[in-house]
């Protein structure tokens, strides 16, 4: 046998990822997209906690010959990212993220003013508007439902619904959802100013009543019981959301609450981001449909904001001018970003205006509303 150093080097290079990379240039495009997303996450701070692992997942998934996505076959071990993805496929990660969100959320403002729930419902308008538009653009109903859920402005909900109804579209939908959530301070204010008068934006709202500890403890138990019994498909999201909130409020599980809010949520975020990113392979992502999804996602966000604002105006009229309609736009979930936008816009109109706590009611109601909408879509379009 003759050994040649150059021959060995040629053989190594021919079998390397670099050689395979150029056999399908679409992988190169995906790698470039991953770099752009990493820049947006790190350089522009667009939802970095999720965008960075998603982008890195895209990068890893598009390196050739890694076998990271291989399913177990013929006794061979599965790829690492395939294993991670099982947590998305079986709705584990979105539910665990909801556990953390529940542990972080104070439902006090919602309990103090329960009419906020209707603003949270109205701000789901974008889900159904985008669903109809997606159907008009030729998407299958299950895919249209997954696109529509972007309008819920709730990443874990979008991921759960899409993983169940249209898994191939998961990366595009998740990236659209998280990107637009990061862009809420840019998307919402022009709509808020266009749909409300200065007089409405200046309205100062009455202070919320204090909420007792017992009410806060009973709330998650009551909500979980009523909602899950009525729409069982909401159980993974609402169940975990309310369990996390019970950990927070009951006062005897501080360690569990702390773990759910911090350590667990961070660990699951890493797995969730990588799992979503790893589904973004060239043949499924580089299509016209991805562009349509990105556009429809923006429309969904805008319609949700409009729905909340218009219902806020109705509540303003019905309450004799006691409700500032700006809190309606916070009904899109995106906690607490959307509530902060209401606060900022309210204060621009009237520097003595403090809308943040008032906007937190519709904001957390939006989380429940989008979970209910997700349950409905899963019921109608699920297998």
């Amino acid at each position, binding site marked *: 046998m003759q050994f040649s150093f150059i021959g060995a080097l040629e053989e190594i290079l021919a079998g390397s990822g670099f050689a395979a990379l150029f056999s399908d240039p679409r992988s190169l495009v995906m790698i470039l997209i991953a770099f752009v997303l990493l820049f947006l996450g790190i350089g522009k701070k667009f939802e970095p906690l999720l965008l960075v692992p998603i982008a890195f997942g895209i990068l890893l998934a598009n390196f050739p010959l890694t076998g990271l996505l291989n399913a177990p076959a013929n006794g061979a071990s599965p790829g690492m990212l395939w294993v991670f993805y099982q947590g998305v496929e079986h709705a584990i990660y979105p539910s665990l993220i909801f556990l953390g969100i529940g542990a972080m959320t104070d439902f006090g403002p*919602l*309990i103090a003013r*329960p*009419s906020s*729930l*209707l603003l*949270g*419902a*109205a701000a*789901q*308008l974008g*889900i*159904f*508007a985008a*669903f*109809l538009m997606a*159907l008009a653009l030729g998407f*299958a*109903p*299950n895919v249209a439902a997954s696109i529509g859920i972007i309008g819920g402005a709730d990443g874990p909900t979008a991921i759960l619904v899409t993983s169940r109804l249209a898994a191939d579209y998961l990366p595009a939908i998740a990236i659209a959802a998280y990107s637009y959530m990061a862009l809420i301070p840019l998307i919402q204010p022009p709509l808020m100013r266009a749909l409300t008068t200065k007089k409405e934006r200046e309205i100062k709202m009455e*202070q919320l009543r204090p909420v*007792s500890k*017992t*009410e806060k403890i*009973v*709330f998650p138990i*009551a*909500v979980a019981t*009523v*909602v899950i019994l*009525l*729409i069982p498909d909401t159980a993974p999201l609402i169940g975990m959301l309310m369990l996390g909130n019970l950990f927070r409020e009951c006062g005897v599980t501080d360690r569990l609450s702390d773990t759910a809010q911090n350590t667990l949520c961070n660990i699951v975020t890493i797995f969730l981001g990588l799992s979503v990113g790893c589904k973004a392979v060239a043949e499924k992502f580089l299509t016209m449909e991805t562009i349509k999804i990105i556009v429809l996602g923006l429309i969904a966000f805008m319609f949700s904001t409009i729905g909340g604002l218009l219902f806020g105006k109705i509540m303003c009229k019905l309450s004799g001018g006691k409700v500032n309609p700006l809190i309606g736009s916070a009904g899109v979930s995106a906690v607490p970003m959307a509530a902060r936008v209401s606060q900022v816009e309210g204060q621009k109109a009237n520097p*003595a205006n*403090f809308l943040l706590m008032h906007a937190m009611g519709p904001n957390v*109601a939006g989380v*429940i*509303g989008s979970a*209910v*909408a997700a349950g*409905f*879509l899963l*019921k*109608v*379009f*699920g297998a």
Partner: protein
Amino acid sequence: MIQGPLSPVEAVMVALSGFVIVFLMLALLWGVIIVVSRIVGGVEKKAAPVAAASQPAAAPVAAPAAAPAPAAAAPQVVLEGVDETQAACVMAIVSHETGIPLDQLVFKSIKAV
């Protein structure tokens, strides 16, 4: 449930039904919250006199522990052009930003500018 394509009418019906169901569900929760708040409020009101009645016996022991009583001891803050709620917010923000507990801060006046 629905697997095949939808006609335009069916699509609109699905969208409308979904939106109405979200509304109904959250309206129902509104009712649940009101009922729960009333029940809890009622129970707590009943419990309050019982707690108050049992307090005098404990008062002599508790009194030395409640020494600081900052609200009663604190000098009156002069408010100019701000109401009590706004003043409370300002005090809370100043305390938060400076890291000084409220009971160690003394406000002489808060004036709207």
